[in-house]
C-alpha cells in the first residue's frame, strides 16, 4: 500500500501540519470516499477519470449495493432482487481500492477516517455520501425493533425483502397502510410509487385488498399525475389522506400493526409500512458536518461542507434544495464535486457547477411519469434554472406514458452502468 502525504504527516505527528505544502510528486494525493451508492461510487469513478494519478479508496460495508430506485418495482413483483443489486468489480477494475467496512469516525482536523475493522486512513480530501439514517423514536412507538414488525423498507436491503414477504403472506382483502413522515425525506415521489406498485401486486394477486396512505403533507410530488394514474389503473383501491384530513400519524403500535393519528383515529393494518423521520447518515454527525437540522449544509459550487473544509458531502445527506433527495441528484452532485476536487488538487480553478435531475416513477406496467429540473450554483447555493424542468403533462396520452415507463427502465440501466458498470 502506498503511503500518502497525509499519512506521512499523521505518522510524524500533528505538529508537522504547520509545515509548508509537500509537493505532490512525493506521494499521490489520497481521496477517501465513504459510501458506495449513487453519490459515493460516482465520485470515486469520476475522480479516477479526472486524474489517473490520484489514489482513491472507497469505503462501503455491503459487498453488493441494493438500490432504493427500482426497489418499489421489486415490491410490485416486476423486478427480481438480483437486478437491483450491484457489486464493485467495475470500480476495482477502474483502479479504485474498495474496502468493505463501515466508517466509524472522522477527524477533520488531522484528516483521518477510522473504519470498523480498526484501520485508520489519512486523506487529502474526504467525500461523504452516507445517505440517510432514521431518527428512531421521533415517531412514538417506532424504533429499530418495531421496524422488524412494521418495516420501513426505506433503505434497500433486508427491510425491502421483509416488506415483500409480508405482502406475499397477506390474505386477499387485507389492508396495506403506509405512513409518510414529517420533514425532508429521501425520494419525494417514492411513497406514491410504492403505493402504485403494491396496488399492481394486489390487482394481479389480491384484488379485494386496500391501500391507505397516511400523509404528513397536504400535497405531494407529481400528485395530479399519480392520482390520475391510480384512478385509471386501480379505481378506488388507493386512498390517500393528507395532513389536514387527519393524515398526520402521532404514534404507531408495531405489535398490533396500528397507526394512530394526532386526532386519535386508529388505523389497523395487515401490512404496516412506516417510513420514519430522517436525517443525514450518522457519519456526517461524527465528522461534524451536519447542522442542527440533522442535514449537511454545503457550498453548492463544490458540494463541500460549509463547516469542515476538505470534506465534500453528496446526495440525500445534504441540504441541496431545490434539488430533491434522489439518486440522480447524488450522481450529478458527485460529478461536480469530483471535477472540483481534481481541479483543486491540481491547483486549477474548478469548472462552473451544473446539475440536472430526472426522476421517473412507475404507476403501472407501461405507465410512467417523470419530474425534471436543471440547476446551477450561485453564491454557494443551488438554484433552479427558471423556465426549465417540471412534470410530465397531465393531458398526455398512453403512448407518452408508455415511453416514460420505457425510459425509466432505460434510465436505471444507464445510471447503474455509469456507476457500477464495467470499467
Amino acid at each position: 500500500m502506498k503511503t500518502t502525504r497525509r499519512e506521512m504527516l499523521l505518522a510524524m505527528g500533528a505538529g508537522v501540519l504547520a509545515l509548508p505544502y509537500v509537493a505532490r510528486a512525493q506521494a499521490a494525493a489520497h481521496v477517501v470516499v465513504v459510501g458506495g451508492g449513487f453519490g459515493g461510487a460516482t465520485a470515486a469513478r469520476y475522480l479516477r477519470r479526472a486524474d489517473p494519478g490520484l489514489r482513491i479508496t472507497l469505503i462501503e460495508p455491503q459487498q453488493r449495493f441494493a438500490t432504493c430506485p427500482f426497489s418499489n418495482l421489486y415490491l410490485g413483483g416486476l423486478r427480481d432482487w438480483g437486478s437491483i443489486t450491484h457489486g464493485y468489480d467495475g470500480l476495482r477494475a477502474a483502479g479504485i481500492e474498495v474496502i468493505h467496512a463501515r466508517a466509524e469516525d472522522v477527524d477533520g482536523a488531522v484528516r483521518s477516517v477510522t473504519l470498523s475493522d480498526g484501520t485508520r486512513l489519512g486523506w487529502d480530501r474526504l467525500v461523504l455520501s452516507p445517505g440517510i439514517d432514521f431518527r428512531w423514536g421521533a415517531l412514538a412507538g417506532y424504533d429499530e425493533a418495531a421496524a422488524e414488525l412494521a418495516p420501513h423498507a426505506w433503505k434497500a436491503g433486508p427491510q425491502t425483502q421483509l416488506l415483500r414477504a409480508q405482502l406475499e403472506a397477506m390474505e386477499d382483502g387485507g389492508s396495506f397502510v403506509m405512513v409518510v413522515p414529517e420533514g425532508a425525506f429521501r425520494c419525494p415521489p417514492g411513497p406514491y410509487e410504492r403505493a402504485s406498485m403494491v396496488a399492481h401486486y394486489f390487482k394481479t394477486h389480491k384484488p379485494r385488498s386496500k391501500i391507505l396512505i397516511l400523509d404528513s403533507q397536504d400535497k405531494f410530488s407529481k400528485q395530479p399525475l399519480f392520482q390520475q394514474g391510480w384512478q385509471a389503473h386501480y379505481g378506488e383501491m388507493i386512498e390517500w389522506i393528507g395532513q389536514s384530513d387527519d393524515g398526520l400519524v402521532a404514534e404507531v403500535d408495531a405489535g398490533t400493526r396500528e397507526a394512530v393519528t394526532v386526532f386519535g383515529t386508529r388505523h389497523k393494518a395487515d401490512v404496516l409500512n412506516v417510513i420514519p423521520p430522517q436525517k443525514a447518515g450518522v457519519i456526517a454527525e461524527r465528522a461534524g458536518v451536519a447542522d442542527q437540522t440533522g442535514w449537511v449544509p454545503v457550498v453548492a459550487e463544490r458540494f463541500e461542507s460549509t463547516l469542515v473544509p476538505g470534506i465534500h458531502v453528496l446526495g440525500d445527506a445534504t441540504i441541496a434544495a431545490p434539488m430533491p433527495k434522489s439518486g440522480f441528484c447524488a450522481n450529478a452532485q458527485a460529478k461536480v464535486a469530483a471535477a472540483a476536487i481534481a481541479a483543486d488538487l491540481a491547483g486549477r480553478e474548478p469548472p462552473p457547477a451544473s446539475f440536472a435531475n430526472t426522476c421517473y416513477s412507475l404507476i403501472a406496467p407501461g405507465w410512467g411519469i417523470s419530474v425534471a429540473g436543471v440547476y446551477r450554483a450561485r453564491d454557494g447555493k443551488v438554484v433552479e434554472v427558471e423556465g426549465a424542468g417540471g412534470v410530465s403533462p397531465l393531458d398526455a396520452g398512453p403512448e407518452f406514458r408508455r415511453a416514460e415507463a420505457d425510459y425509466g427502465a432505460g434510465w436505471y440501466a444507464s445510471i447503474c452502468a455509469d456507476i457500477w458498470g464495467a470499467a
Partner: protein
Amino acid sequence: MIHLLSILLLAAGLGAARAQELDPAAVQVLAGPCANCHGPEGRSPGAIPPIAGLPADAAAKRMLAFREDADPSATVMPRLMMGYDEDEIRALARWFAGIPK
C-alpha cells in the same frame, strides 16, 4: 467613438468570458448528467437513445428543437433543454460528437 469603443471592449470581454466558461472542463461538467440517462460517455445500454458519436450539427439541431418544444416525439427532453443556452447546447453536441459510438 469612446462609447463605441467601450461597447466593443465590453463585447470582447464577454466573448472571452464565454469562451473561458466553455472550456473542456466546463463542458465535461455540463455533460455529466447526460450519462445518467444516455449511458456512460453517451453509450446507452438500455431503452434511451445513445448520443455518443452523433454528428454535432444534427445533434445541436435536435436539442434546439427540444428547447423550442418543437419535437412532437419528445417526453422529458424539452424540460431539460430549456435549462441550457444555445452556446451550451452546441458545446454539448460537439462534446458527444467527439466520443466514438
